[in-house]
């Protein structure tokens, strides 16, 4: 038996026994437990104003948080290539139950995913780490100024020199992303520079994004204007790439309503220079329906929050991926902005077979009537 297998056995046997004893409510609520009640954690509430650069770094008083980068790139031969880098944080204890910061003691759990995709090739890696919120330098962590977020040797960090005039420069506007992983195909990874060509975009109500009809929500902002240059290695082959990226920042203590079992999340770079973020949370809307929300962003970065009834999402087609029916063709309508799009994943094999599995991949958007190309972007679907 492999070492880890016993550890997993260790951890899961008592687990299952525990589940059997307790009431059914102890089962993970919402997708990946994101709907569990927040308890003694800090709550995301409307009316809180976001502060930068502080809010670029972790908020350990909140239960969950992420730094989520997706990119639609092209290599030298103009072949499209997609990538993802995500750092997740989860607090294991509420702020008032944190352990003493003895060596190795931890209250924060970190998980990171990276993926590189081109054509039918899709490579995925995952890492875990622990840290104590009282300690700056751990195996994983974040720093607000100059910005840095890392786990092991995977790192998203500012490359702005801050000596002298630190206060005047936005260190978050120029980042380097580096992550590499060995695997049996020869390894994959990337070294990229990210340059912000527009401002940060606050979603919802000045950064408070409602996630259910009953007011549940999170703090949510994005940098959708990244221009990206650099090198990507896929199966041991390195190529030069360039393209656009989108970084999502979100933190909360109860992201989902406990009835919500997953979401479908779109981020699109439109050819007009507009950006569109739209999602639906399945369940938890009015009368138990789906809850929709989104943001329409002008090329200058002016956001308009989209109300639930301002967005239409229709599932058109599914594909069988990793033994599941995955929606790969959608109709996305924003009548207010005059858009009626068919959003489709050209390659369905983008299943993230990680400890918390989901689908995440590149999409292309076409006009529903003329079929003309309207943009590119990423689609994330959970709970399938």
């Amino acid at each position: 038996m492999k070492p880890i297998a016993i550890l997993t056995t260790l951890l899961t046997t008592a687990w299952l026994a525990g589940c059997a004893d307790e009431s059914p409510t102890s089962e993970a609520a919402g997708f990946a437990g994101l709907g569990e009640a927040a308890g003694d954690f800090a709550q995301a509430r409307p009316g809180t104003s976001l502060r930068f650069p502080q809010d670029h770094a972790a908020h350990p008083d909140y239960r969950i948080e992420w730094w989520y980068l997706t990119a639609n790139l092209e290599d030298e031969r103009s072949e499209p290539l997609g990538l993802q880098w995500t750092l997740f944080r989860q607090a294991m204890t509420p702020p008032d139950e944190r352990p003493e910061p003895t060596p190795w003691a931890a209250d924060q759990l970190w998980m990171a995913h990276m993926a590189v995709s081109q054509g039918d090739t899709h490579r995925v890696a995952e890492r875990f780490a622990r840290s104590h919120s009282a300690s700056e330098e751990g195996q994983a962590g974040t720093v607000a100024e100059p910005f840095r977020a890392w786990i092991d040797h995977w790192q998203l960090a500012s490359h702005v020199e801050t000596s002298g005039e630190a206060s005047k420069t936005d260190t978050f506007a120029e980042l380097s992303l580096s992550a590499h992983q060995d695997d049996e195909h020869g390894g994959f990874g990337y070294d990229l520079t990210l340059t912000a060509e527009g401002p940060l975009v606050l979603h919802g109500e000045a950064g408070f994004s409602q996630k259910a009809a009953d007011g549940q929500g999170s703090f949510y902002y994005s940098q959708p204007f990244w221009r990206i240059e650099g090198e990507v290695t896929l199966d041991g082959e390195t190529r030069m790439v360039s393209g656009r990226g989108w970084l999502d920042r979100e933190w909360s203590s109860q992201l989902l309503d406990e009835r919500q079992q997953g979401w479908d999340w779109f981020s699109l770079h439109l050819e007009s220079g507009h950006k569109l973020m739209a999602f639906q949370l399945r369940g938890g809307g009015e009368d138990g329906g789906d809850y929709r929300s989104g943001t329409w962003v002008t090329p200058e970065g002016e956001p308009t929050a989209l109300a639930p009834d301002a967005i239409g999402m229709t599932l058109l087609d599914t594909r069988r991926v990793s033994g599941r029916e995955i929606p790969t063709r959608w109709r996305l309508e924003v009548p207010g902005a005059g858009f009626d799009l068919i959003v489709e994943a050209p390659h369905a094999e983008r299943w993230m077979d990680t400890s918390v599995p989901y689908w995440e991949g590149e999409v292309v958007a076409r006009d529903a009537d003329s079929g003309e190309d309207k943009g590119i972007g990423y689609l994330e679907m959970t709970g399938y």
Partner: protein
Amino acid sequence: MLTALVTLLSHYKRHPGQLAMLLLGLWVAGALWSGVQAINASARDSYARAEALFSTGLDRLERRDGEPLTREDYLRLRRAGLPVSPLLEGTLEASDGTELRVIGVDPFTLPGDSAFAAASSQGELTDFLTPPWQTRIAPDTLPALGVNAREAPGAEPRLATGRLPPLVLSPMLPPGTLVMDIAAAAVLLDSGERLSRLVTAPKALEHPPEGLVLTRATTLVSPGQLTESFHLNLTAMALLALVVGLFIVQAALGLALEQRLGMLRTLRALGVSGRGLVGLLALELVLLGVIGALAGIASGVWLARVLLPDVAATLGSLYGADVAVMLNLPWHYWLGGLGVTLGGLLLAGSGVLWRAARLSVLGLGQAQAWRAGFLRQLRGMALTGGAVAAGGLGLWVWLTHQPTGEGLLAGFGLIAALLLTSALLLPPLLALALAGLGRLMRRRPLAQWALADLKLQLPRLALAMMALLIALSANLGVSSMVGGFRLTFLEWLDQRLVADYYLRPAPEQFDAVQAWLAERPEVAELLPTRHAEATLLEVEGTGGARTPHLPVGLYGITPGESLIPSWPLLATQAGRDAAWQSFAAGEAFVNEQLAIDQGLAPSDRLTLSAPGGQETLVVAAVYPDYGNTRGEVLLATPKLAERFAATPSSIGIVLTVGADEVGLRDALRQRFELGSDALVDQREVKRVSVEIFERTFTITRALSVLTLAVAALALLASLLAQARERRRQLAPLWALGVPRARLVAIQLAQLGGMALAVGALAVPLGSVLALGLVAVINVAAFGWRLPLHVFPGDIALTLATAGAVALLAAALPAARLWRTPPRALLAEEAP
């Protein structure tokens, strides 16, 4: 049908002795077999649990200078992208004095699939990772903590250093091991930022990072592999006991059938069909078998419980394998024990059933009639014996074509064939000898009668004599092997341990201590040793070049005045002196295990991985290395330090004659802060080694004595069973005027003589057996060959045992004959 069964069984009511003998045979055979199997099953369970633990199966990293790694080192390596995981290991003393091993892990980085993969919620993981944390513990470790299984979950037993995190039971963990989050372990062990080691998935790193030593998982042989041969030995002994026990059973069954022939004929005549009769007899067998097997298993478990602490201690000290001292038996053990005993019984009883099936209703049970049958049987035995011998010979030829050290199972097969051939050929041989002797004694009627009478008894005695032969030769073989091993081992210990003291200073003190000692007048010579690990990349020799990629240990010794004269060498290129000169100049010695495994001989070339690239060494000699399980390469300490950056390990201190030992010890302790176990007396090392050795073979010896006891029992049982009938044979002699004393003496001489003959046969057979054990089994099991020693004492003891067993077995019937009034003997005449 029921009536018929009751009638059949009523025989045992009239002859309770036979029933007792039958059950005794089954019980003894079953008890030994299931006892050993219980020990094996329990030990295997412990190994499986130990192998599942993180410490085995993972590559490990430690600092080259022997200093502990820290959390900072860990973070630095992680940021460099190396997939290392921290492991903290230490011992805590339980309230009853038991040492418990504490292992602190980081489930996030521990190699393998993600800890979350199988998780449906993160709650349990959070409990493991956050205060008050959890202690994972196997139920059989609970007694050491004074906690019973019912109260255990959630209990927080107090130890000297603090409370343990709440207990959670994990039966898959090895005994005596507590697994917890590394943060909890760091608090309990008060280890601060220190780490015991870093681990990685096997082969995850090609080279160790700067300043660290990488030990591959394949180097850390799992306890299951190491102890396999030990368990195979136990199993073989148990199988022997089972076979001998079944001999008794078959003798008893045969007798019971013979005495019931009349009854069987009557039953047939009354209308019970032949098939029905066989069915009834089979039913009887199964009935008796279940009773005997259950009793056997029950006693076997008891026996195992008694022996297990000894076995566990042996395995622990010999191989470092933790074996639970409490029995832990899987369900298949119980079924297996029952199955083997019943299967053996049916095999033993098949002959009886066959005879019953061919029973002639009208035939008369007469000695002469049976004699004809017996002659046929003898021919059969001789033919089968020849066939088995041919098979054994084939096996032997095959073995000689195998590379040395291969074919452990075939080795056992060869020994089994040898024993079986001898056992099968024994009765025909005895019959021949008796016939020959009878012709010689033509002039001495009484002697001739005694021989003829013995020939008549042979059918019934044959099985008991076969059992005796097997038991005697096994006993002799095993005791020769153990005795020879003991002699060689003790001699080797004397040769290897030449220094009076062995000092193991902390790595940073090593040079200072060595310099200080060199100045002392009490010290005649210092023998510093060093240790390193390397991979054997290439072997170049007479047989061509090969690339084994085998991890080997490198060990540095100081070739000086004290060591050179006594260090044993098995093979050299040009004599001992030349070998030592080359050694001092930088050539290598390899141990016998490596030489056998890789087919190495002096003057072959080895290429080894080294910190500075590759190093090529010439083999100057092969040396014996008993007690080691791995291949090892020996170099002069300075060369090893220079070429392989080896870490210091110990300093042997040879004292001048009449040196003030106590003074030096005290001065050393005062000058340097040495741990309590840093300085070891050579006598102490020897004492511990010998103790370990003795313990290892306690069980082998015990089993071989038990087997002999079973064989004696078989003989006694056979004799008792036919005592009544014998008297019928003796009565005419008495009537002819032979005095009773003479009759008794004849009886004793008959049996004693035959047993002595068997004992005499057992001597060469036992020696061949010892040769097989030493030259085939040992080489395959341990990787070294032992010189064959012959112990006249053991041979004499074997002969004496044979005689004593026979006389003892004959004494009881003889005493009964002595006390029988002549009138009764006369009455025997009329059956």
